[in-house]
């Protein structure tokens, strides 16, 4: 087993607000190996994006990381780096856009509107490598071609508004990959795209992983997209991981009631008659996080007692497949006793 590319330990993120300290992410730990795609799924407000941004310290100035939180970046051939210990913006440059690149959800909002796409690509290359402007230009045009943008030399000189949605997202990917990052964070990269274009972008990303061998943290709310791309998946709810494991295992045998709920709520083409079952209630406000298991307020199988008071620990029904649920734990014990 190779050393993980990035190792997140006990990450707890809180935000200072007028209403007090809000917990956005709580005790999240995960590893990501080179060449691996880890899917992070959850509803809006579950803390997926905040987790991802923490890897590059991109969260706002009111962010408080608990002292126990550690994000260790292991670039092969370099000393391990604790991202959260970096205090000065100057030091962040080796992480942001260097070892780690990010693709955002809305490609229109992420490109500067008044600078050509090409200039933006070249700018970051000059910042992160020792290339000359000429080399950077050549590489940028080549990357645009690699992601399937027709007539890249012409597109290089155009502005983001002249690109279609799918093309912008491709250009974003080309830009993120041109610095050869070790870790790519993709935050809902296909959500704003049509299904046909989404399929193209997913293909492109999986191809590039196998070619460049980087690790990808793939954030999405769409379990179908995860099933098609990720090797492992972590399901988040209200800032906590509730279930993690290999994609096949989690989707075929979801153990946590929340994961099961997400799968049941999904309309499936195989069975048009199946009733759509929503998860009852709404995701609670982070201002009043439920005690005990964070999901108990919406859980249909919540038990009196432990679910309301005790935070469930992780158990492994199958090696590699971790679940944080009292009920699963109880059943597992019962099974073992019999």
């Amino acid at each position: 087993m190779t050393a993980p590319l990035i190792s997140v330990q006990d990450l707890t993120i809180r935000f200072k607000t007028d209403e007090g300290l809000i917990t956005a992410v709580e005790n999240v730990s995960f590893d990501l190996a080179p060449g691996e795609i880890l899917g992070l799924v959850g509803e809006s407000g579950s803390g997926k994006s905040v987790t991802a941004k923490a890897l590059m310290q991109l969260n706002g100035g009111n962010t408080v990381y608990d002292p126990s939180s550690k994000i260790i970046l292991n670039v092969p051939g370099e000393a391990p780096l604790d991202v959260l210990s970096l205090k000065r913006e100057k030091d962040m440059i080796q992480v942001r856009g260097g070892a780690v690149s990010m693709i955002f959800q809305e490609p229109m909002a992420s490109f500067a509107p008044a600078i050509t796409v090409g200039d933006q690509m070249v700018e970051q290359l000059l910042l992160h490598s020792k290339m000359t402007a000429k080399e950077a230009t050549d590489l940028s045009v080549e990357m645009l071609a690699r992601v399937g943008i027709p007539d890249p030399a012409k597109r290089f000189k155009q502005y983001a508004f002249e690109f279609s949605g799918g093309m912008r997202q491709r250009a974003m990917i080309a830009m993120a990959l041109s610095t050869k990052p070790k870790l790519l964070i993709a935050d809902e990269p296909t959500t704003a795209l049509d299904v046909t274009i989404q399929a193209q972008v997913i293909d492109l990303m999986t191809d590039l992983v196998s070619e460049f061998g980087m690790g990808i943290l793939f954030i999405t709310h769409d379990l179908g997209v995860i099933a098609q791309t990720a090797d492992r998946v972590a399901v988040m709810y209200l800032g906590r991981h509730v279930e993690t494991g290999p994609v096949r295992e989690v989707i075929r045998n979801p153990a946590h009631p929340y994961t099961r709920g997400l799968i049941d709520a999904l309309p499936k083409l195989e069975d048009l008659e199946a009733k759509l079952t929503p998860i009852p209630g709404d995701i609670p406000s982070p201002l009043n996080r439920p005690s005990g298991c964070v999901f108990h307020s919406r859980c249909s199988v919540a038990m009196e007692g432990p679910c309301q008071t005790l935070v469930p620990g992780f158990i492994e029904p199958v090696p590699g497949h971790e679940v944080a649920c009292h009920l699963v734990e109880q059943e597992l014990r019962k099974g073992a006793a019999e």
Partner: protein
Amino acid sequence: MSDPVISAKDLTVRYQIGHGLLTQKSYLNAVDGVTIEIDKGSFFGLVGESGSGKTTLGRALLKAAPISEGEVIYQDNQVRYDLRKLSKEQLKDYRKRAQLIFQDPYAALSPRMTVRDIIAEPLEVMGLTKTREETDTRVREIAASCRLNLEHLRRFPHAFSGGQRQRISIARALVSGPRFVVADESVAALDVSIQADVLNLLKSIQRDMGISFLFISHDLSVVAHVCDHVAVMYLGQLIETAPTRSLFARPRHPYTKALLSAIPSLDPDDRGNTEKLEGEIPSPTSPPPGCKFNTRCKFAQDRCRKEVPPLREMAPDHFTACHFAEEFDFTRAQDDAPGLETA
């Protein structure tokens, strides 16, 4: 059997682009000769990629986009309107009978109005209720059927989650007692766990109140679950329309098939089996000649580049606009068209 609430014939919505002074005056057909019938009490799905004209079609049926050519007839038990020839009074009345639910529940609700005022506004503007008591009763009634309680009515929209906001938008759209409602991407902005809840609500409204819905969506799996009839749009035209079962059991247009196979499957072992559609939807300012899909269709022949395919009935009530629809067998087991070579 055919008792349509809306029937459009050769409906075209045309916008002028370029001013004509220095630039050449040109036109764009956002909706291009669409003929469509929406039966009373049906849940009619309209799907297509962005830029296919589905929103514009929905708006034209509400008389919120200009009807440049063709005819749109609205008919319920009381009135029959030709939307191109509405008087001012009739248009006012039509606004009560036909309503719209928007996509983004965060943008659609005024942050400065209480939920009660938001829902009551259409009643007051349209003069449907005389007294405050009457308004309140009606608001409570409709709020209850959208599963909002009295407590909710006093609050402002910011206090609500996406799903609840969408229920408020639905209540606002229904309060005037419409017979026809256009739901434009009404669940696209919601999380899956909430999406199912709003879909079930819309379905129960359709069943209980007998309202006809035009459900616009880019998500075929959602449409498959809630709609009884589906129309697929591409570059302003209908390319396939059929009862939901028929369409999903056997799509006959290569575009419908491509849309279906682009939906990411939940089965991790199903990777890479999908056919990918190449390229993007062409600009509607310069649509390709012949079949508009020919630039992306892997079965396209010479004829497709010259002749526009008409909608032809391939199975009962199943219409497809493709020259070679007979030759495709897009059932699950088989993806190829035996008679045609892929180009």
